């Protein structure tokens, strides 16, 4: 099993959820996050006082899936979230040791 963490543009979240539904990927955890990659700082001015914005709002989405589903999901995320401009985000993939559903005590892929 793998955990896929994708940091994406907030504007892409709804579209991505719909696209993942088509792959029958339903379970996910979503966070509002701040982050930065290659983007340049943005300058803001409050009564003429300069503020440099160097962290940008992103959404982080976490999905845990069987090993054989990883590539499909990653492909779909890229299709939906890629605009070609700096700031599209990143995808991280981690191994998952185990999963436990608290309600039924099921373990492993059954708990997905």
């Amino acid at each position, binding site marked *: 099993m793998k955990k896929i963490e994708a940091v994406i543009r907030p504007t892409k979240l709804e579209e991505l959820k719909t696209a993942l539904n088509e792959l029958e990927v339903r379970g996910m955890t979503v966070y509002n996050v701040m982050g930065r990659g290659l983007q340049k700082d943005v300058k803001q*001015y409050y009564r*003429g006082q300069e503020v440099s914005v160097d962290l940008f709002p992103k959404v982080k989405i976490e999905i845990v899936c069987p090993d054989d589903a990883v590539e499909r999901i990653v492909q779909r995320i890229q299709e939906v979230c890629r605009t070609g401009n700096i700031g599209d985000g990143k995808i991280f993939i981690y191994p998952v040791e185990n999963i436990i559903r608290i309600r039924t005590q099921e373990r492993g892929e059954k708990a997905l």
Partner: protein
Amino acid sequence: MKVKTSILMAVILAAIMLLSVTMPVLAADELSVDTGDTAFIIICSAMVLIMTPGLAFFYGGMVRKKNVLSIMMQCIAVMALVSVQWVLLGYTLSFGPDVGGVIGNLHFLGLSGVSILPSPDYASTIPHYVFVAFQLMFAIITAALISGAFAERMRFSAFILFVLAWTTLVYDPVAHWVWGGGWLGQLGALDFAGGTVVHISSGVSGLVVAIFIGKRLGKDRETIVPHNLPFTVLGAALLWFGWFGFNAGSSLAADGIAGLAFLVTNTCAAAGAISWVMAEWLHHGKPTVFGAVSGAVAGLVAITPAAGFVSPLSAVVMGIIVGPICYLFVSRVKERLGYDDSLDAFGIHGVGGTVGALATGIFASTAVNPAGADGLLFGGLHLFVVQLVAVAGTYVYAALATLLILKVISLIVPLRVSNEEEEVGLDTSLHGEDAYGYDDIGANDRLVGIQS
């Protein structure tokens, strides 16, 4: 019949004529209340009051979210404290019979001698009580304005002492100088609704407190940004609305001058918003909402001393002048000089008030209001000189008296909160409350009901 009727008519006519001859004599003996004027000034008083909670939102939006309640509490506290002080002592110091041109005596202590009848000295067509109430609202907003200068770091107990001392020792005398028969009024200074009394006195005093109390922690490391600009817009809207009561009401009658003041107030606010936004648009490439409302308030400040004395065209020019000057002050001059006037109490009220007071000496015209005077533009040099004296006198007195007050209070209680209290935020450390408790994990009651 016809003859009888005409005789009767003649008698009635004669009686009416006789009455109308004697009526004014009666009216002069016992000043009579004009219902129109009275209704107008009562409404204007309520409008000026709403400016202070409006200011709470205007300022509240500009501070960080950990301090929004503390600045709002300061505004509410001023409403409570000054309202009581005014009845007990403040009114008589401002408007009691003159002592040496500098202060009123204690004739009206506790409002003794004030009644539902008009005062022969002030606003002779409205009840004296209404005059007292109207003037009170000015005392409130003035003291509240100062709090913008030392936002996010003053101890609340020190603030209470400061407000009581400041309103008694600075506001009350300065109001007397201009409106209560004091030396500036005698000199011929024109201050229609409080350019010097309200805006210069509060702005300059705010600057002194900001320097005396020191910068906010972290001010040198980072620019501190507003946490809720829509609050600031809401506050500006309430200020703009209330300002109609402030300026038009300062005619103290529902008359032509009130109408003039109403119009030029709106005009100058609008021109101020335009000129500030144009300045920053050219400077940094974006027109900001914060700039638009700041410019509007700067315009309102500038027109305040001039409202009953200048034409609408002059108000346009004043608004165009004041926006860029205040913008330059808050964006550049403040930075250069290095003081931390948190919310620009001096940058907008002190500077805008100064522009307004001097502009009154330029643009005032007796063609607009015969009871005023002619400014530079209309051939009058005297008025401009008097306005300069009024500005200088207010600067010097407000600064020195504020410094003295701060020295004394700092012997009783520290002016600043501790560093730890400041870092945590004044809302929790001083008031034990969070403005936005639902941000906290586990405190999100709103979502409990929709869990599956």
